[in-house]
């Protein structure tokens, strides 16, 4: 494997790791808001690493630019979606625990 391929493989594996983190957060965190927090962080970085790795593998600037566009759109979509879902979760009455045990 060439150096580029090794680097790309490393990025892909790291990206996969972030997706795993997002999934674990999704399954294990106690309420909607914390799950939302975990998964948006993880999948934004995860997709970035996957896109970067695939961009390296594609060997074409045009394809890499398309991947960059896809990632930027994913950021925008995830931001708006997370905001809207969080508003809904709060309206539904999700209880947000604070460190000191009180509720906001």
């Amino acid at each position: 494997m060439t150096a580029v391929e090794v680097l790309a493989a490393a990025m892909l594996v790291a990206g996969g790791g972030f997706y795993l983190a997002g999934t674990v957060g999704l399954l294990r965190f106690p309420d909607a808001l914390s799950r939302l927090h975990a998964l948006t962080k993880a999948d934004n970085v995860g997709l970035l690493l996957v896109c970067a790795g695939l961009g390296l593998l594609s060997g074409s600037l045009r394809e890499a630019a398309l991947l960059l566009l896809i990632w930027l759109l994913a950021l925008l979509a995830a931001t708006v979606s997370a905001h809207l879902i969080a508003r809904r979760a709060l309206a539904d009455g999700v209880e947000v625990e604070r460190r000191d045990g009180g509720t906001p």
Partner: protein
Amino acid sequence: MSLAVDLSIAAGLVVLAWRSLAGRDLFRGIVMYIVFGLLLAVTWARLGSPDLAMAEAAIGAGVTGALLMVAYWRLKRISPAEPEDRSPRRSRLAATVALLSTGMVAAIGLAAVQAIGPGGIAGRALFEALPATGLGNPITGVLVVFRNLDTVLEVAVLLAAYLAVRAVLGDRGESLAQPPPQEARLVGALVGVVAPLSVLVALYLLRAGSYLPGGAFQAGATLAACGVLLLLTGRLRAAADAGPWVRGALVVGTAVFGLFGVAMLAFGEPLLAIPGTWAVYLIETAMMVSIAVTLMLLFAGAAGLGGGRR
């Protein structure tokens, strides 16, 4: 490794289909169905069909998901208890039907797998005839030139579906209840980016469809999803009356395609012969407009579209 991928995708599709329909929570079923659509797009991608993956992505992600959500909302307004109280009614025929369906699918699958031999003749003839049409994308070739009767009928079927919805809603010009438009700032930012980009991508798909994966359906579905976005955010409104533009847009696809098909008879060509690549572009553009507007109206459940409050 590829086998593992294929098996998991197949198993996932079956499980998702099952979970969409079974179970008491209707909303959960809707989300399962949305995920099913996403996995289906992955399936088409795995099967090497970018055209189908694009169509599934645009319609499944953009139109159908939102349509089901709004339908759920309307259902709850009509009978608040019902969607959550969906106890599965067991039919005595269920097992028989399931067995027969499985048998049929298995039989078809086995027949398809064993169909080697003289099969592929049509494919070879197609690839020989394709350069003469000026197209590079064999799928577009089949859709618009070689087997275009199916495509004409599909566009006509969309029109018929719209008419059926209008018939069900009654002709007093009343629209269905619409969910409140989402006008948060972040949403506005999204619209500002996605709407122009959708138009750009749709036009690219239309143009590229002659020699790359893409085409009228994908372009129309992308525009429809953009239209759904505009409807949900108040940029477009459902209107009780279809103005001349909307009426024109609804029929232009079928009309242009049909006109070409019939006009060619006058020149001694067979029905639905296509005179050249320029005709393909014209027909595809008309189809794109019709598909987009029809899907948007089906989503809104309305007769027409109007400008938004902004």
